[in-house]
């Protein structure tokens, strides 16, 4: 029941346009990283609903992404695919199918396990992620441990004599999902309806006594989160053109948790920023390796995370959103200015 969505949504759209323009001047490597940022944004946003807003510690996000990715890839490679606009449409349908199947998985996992709390839930979801991975390893028709290669990328679109390149279509497609996800989570979490998520996080017994069906609320959050995780998985499959069970290891789940914690549990805009940072940071440190000759990348990356968490223990944005942070920052700056001005006038008076 706090911030208005207009400002952050507008900012997100502007960033999208800027990134599109940026795509003009950069090579395929940068373009691919831009796409990964969008996938990670989707991943972090969806996990934040469970880990941040509802306060349930889930470590199985990679499992849901795997379900979504494999579903979409199965349809694309085994059922039907076409180039051009039709292809984009099909990819959209398949992404939704992947998301729905992931949501179903979320429901099946969530219903029995969300009665558990804290560490126990973490263990169960961790186990689920591993089960999915092992099951995929043993499914021969999905490639088994070899995975599936040659997944078609998002197609380029021909309009008359003008061709929109694959990257732009891909970016448009992925960022539309990110915007949809951001928009729906924001609407949900900051309505009176979504207060139930926060209530469960703050005090389950009190929430239950106030008429909030806590188990149902947790399952809802879990299902919605899994849906967007599945979609993120399907996007990832198209961008990498190759998936195997190893792509959805425990490390991916941990990465998602890192993004949520770094951005701030319960801050959607924080998740977006953190996802961008976590994706760019290791890549930005690559030149360092060429200079020093030693691979210090992961050391510095880890150190940076440790430092950020020491300086800002509640994550970059805490549980507030960007407009609030901006406003409070502005007021403190104005206060500082005022006190500085007062001091100046005082010293001027005393000198005269």
């Amino acid at each position, binding site marked *: *029941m*706090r911030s208005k969505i207009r400002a952050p949504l507008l900012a997100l759209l502007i960033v999208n346009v800027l990134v599109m323009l940026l795509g003009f001047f950069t090579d395929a490597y940068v373009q691919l990283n831009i796409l990964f940022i969008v996938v990670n944004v989707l991943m972090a946003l969806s996990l934040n609903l469970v880990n941040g807003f509802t306060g349930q510690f889930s470590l199985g996000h990679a499992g849901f992404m795997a379900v979504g990715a494999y579903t979409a890839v199965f349809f694309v490679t085994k059922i039907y695919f076409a180039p051009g606009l039709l292809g984009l449409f099909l990819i959209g349908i398949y992404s939704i199918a992947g998301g729905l199947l992931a949501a179903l998985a979320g429901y099946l996992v969530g219903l029995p396990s969300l009665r558990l709390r804290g560490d126990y839930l973490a263990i169960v979801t961790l186990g689920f992620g591993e089960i999915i991975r092992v099951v995929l390893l043993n499914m021969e028709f999905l490639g088994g441990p070899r995975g599936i290669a040659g997944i078609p990328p998002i197609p380029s679109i021909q309009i008359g004599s003008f061709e929109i390149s694959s990257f732009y279509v891909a970016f448009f497609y992925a960022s539309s999902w990110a915007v949809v996800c951001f928009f*729906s989570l924001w*609407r*949900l979490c900051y*309505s*009176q*309806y*979504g*207060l*139930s998520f*926060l*209530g469960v996080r*703050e*005090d389950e*017994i*009190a*929430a*239950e*006594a*106030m*008429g*909030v*069906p*806590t188990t149902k609320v947790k399952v*809802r959050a879990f299902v919605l989160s899994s849906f967007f995780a599945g979609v993120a998985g399907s996007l990832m499959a198209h961008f990498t053109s190759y998936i195997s069970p190893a792509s959805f290891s425990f490390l991916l789940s941990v990465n998602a948790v890192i993004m949520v914690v770094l951005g701030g549990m319960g801050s959607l805009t924080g998740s977006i920023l953190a996802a961008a940072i976590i994706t760019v940071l290791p890549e930005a440190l690559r030149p360092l390796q060429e200079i020093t000759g030693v691979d210090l990348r992961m050391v510095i990356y880890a150190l940076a995370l440790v430092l950020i968490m020491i300086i800002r223990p509640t994550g970059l944005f805490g*549980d507030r959103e960007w407009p609030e942070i901006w406003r409070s920052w502005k007021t403190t700056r104005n206060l500082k200015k005022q006190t500085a001005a007062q001091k100046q006038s005082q010293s001027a008076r005393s000198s005269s």
Partner: protein
Amino acid sequence: MSLSSENLLLEVKDLSIQFGGLKAVDSLNFSVQKGQLKGLIGPNGAGKTTVFNMLTGVYQPSRGEICFRGQIINRLKPHERCRRGMARTFQNIRLFRELTVLDNVLLGSHQKLTYGIFDSLFFTKKFHTEQKQNLDKALHLLNLFDLANKSELRAAGLPYGQQRKLEIVRALAGEPRLLLLDEPAAGMNHSETDQLMTLIGRVRKEFDLTILLIEHDMKLVMGICEDILVLDHGVKLEEGDSQKVRTSAKVIEAYLGIENEH
């Protein structure tokens, strides 16, 4: 007051619970009439809060029946009981600490929401009108309790007495029939307690409430409750108006001990 079953809001029969070998509450029978303000008192460890926890569904009684508004609610979960019109406060304050005061109250009326996920995603008309209604109601309640100017503060930042008040506001937001107050005046000084009690009286009239109140302080309960139930070691000692309770030998014994004659 007539004891017709029509006027009966809550009826408890043979309520018992055991924790291991300890009989925390043993064969308790009592009833609450509509519109009544009933006090539940007893020394420390008498089982008062345990009774509350069984009424609201936090504990499952090992024996007995809880009948609320003519229906047996033994098997219902806490949130289902709340939806039938039972709201409570907690002895050790349980607010949603990191949420604002206003959000706390809005969560209290969360059970009244009829719109769902899709209404909130697509700004339907229903969503807007309900959101507005609940917001107005919450602000009205906060006004009544002198908390309106703090509505944007985090609940954890309120002083102790106001946190207690906020818990009551939150419980009232769901428009309950029966309000269960667990030591609402705990930790308050005399003037704060007096204020709270007049407030409770006022709220009771305005919202047409039935209240069951746990209190430690005998004097206080004697002042406002029409009917008092005294509990000790999980057993009912005495039930009746303040005059009857005050003169009961058993109650005096439980509170002050037996007088030894030499």
